[in-house]
């Protein structure tokens, strides 16, 4: 694993990042996109303070917190899967990947319950600006979780070290976005 940081594969500055260069392009793009959403959300909050307070009161902060913990633990499992893979233990690698995936499914389950609860109160994406942004941001993030699960499955199918690293990197990005999204959308009020 030491060769990555030293490898100069003609990717220019991206060669100085550990892992697949194009995955870092994706990570950076996603951070910019979500960063823009976060700032847009904050500005809208200032413009509609009452709407945002009312909307946030309807969110389940605990469910969001549980989800943070699920994803963080899932990220740990993914990182351990990469270690196992590096040690040449494919069986253990697959087991950790399965663990990471299960926790990811748990995240989606909590998310779905949250959405269902909102839907039963008649709240949807068109309700108001707060919920438009809430659904766009969390929905777009959840779509990444689904894609992440697909990627983890592909890695488990073909668990080369490179695949494991690249797949885990995507999964960590999904994590990274959530740990920023959670305080901004659920906690700050």
């Amino acid at each position: 694993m030491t060769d990555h940081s030293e490898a100069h594969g003609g990717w220019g500055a991206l060669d100085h990042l550990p892992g697949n260069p194009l995955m870092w392009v994706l990570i950076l793009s996603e951070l910019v996109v979500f960063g823009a959403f976060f700032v847009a959300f904050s500005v809208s909050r200032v413009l509609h303070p009452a709407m945002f307070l009312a909307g946030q009161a309807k969110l389940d902060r605990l469910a969001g917190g549980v989800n943070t913990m699920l994803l963080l633990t899932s990220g740990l499992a993914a990182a351990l899967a990469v270690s196992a893979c590096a040690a040449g233990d494919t069986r253990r690698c697959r087991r950790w990947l399965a663990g990471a995936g299960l926790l990811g499914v748990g995240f989606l389950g909590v998310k779905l319950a949250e959405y269902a609860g909102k839907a039963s109160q008649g709240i949807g994406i068109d309700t108001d600006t707060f919920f438009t942004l809430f659904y766009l941001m969390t929905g777009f993030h959840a779509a990444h979780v689904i894609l992440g699960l697909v990627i983890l499955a592909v890695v488990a199918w073909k668990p080369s070290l490179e695949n494991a690293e690249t797949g885990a990197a995507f999964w960590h990005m999904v994590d990274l976005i959530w740990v920023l999204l959670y305080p901004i959308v659920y906690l700050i009020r």
Partner: protein
Amino acid sequence: MSEILTKSAARNIFYGGTAFFFIVFAGLVAHSVSTVNAMSETHPVTPSVAAGKKVWERHACIDCHTILGEGAYYAPELGNVWVRYGGREDAATAREGIKLWIKSQPTGVEGRRQMPHFDISDAELDSLVDFFKWTSEINTQNWPPKVSG
């Protein structure tokens, strides 16, 4: 990590990422289509509105005018022409006004943009006006900002 592997992984990330964004896009479009269809339940595209759209297309109106801001910017916006003619207050007068305007073209006034003369029957003109009326009732998020279009 070998050179070839990095590049094939890069290719896979490109294809995978593109597929992902496309699926998200298609999902959102599907949601929008269902929203639009739900709206069209209460605000149906009647046969006359559909016929009016055909009249609109047969004469390539969009290659001078705009409708909901899309078109050729050479002639006025027609998405809200029904409102501009006061159709919300007095439908009959607005209908006659729009039809008369179309029938009286071209003006031939020197130095003024000319709308060509089109052979449009009275029934077709009524459909066209129905199409304009239907279009003016679309929820455009309050666009255009002014009734001037």
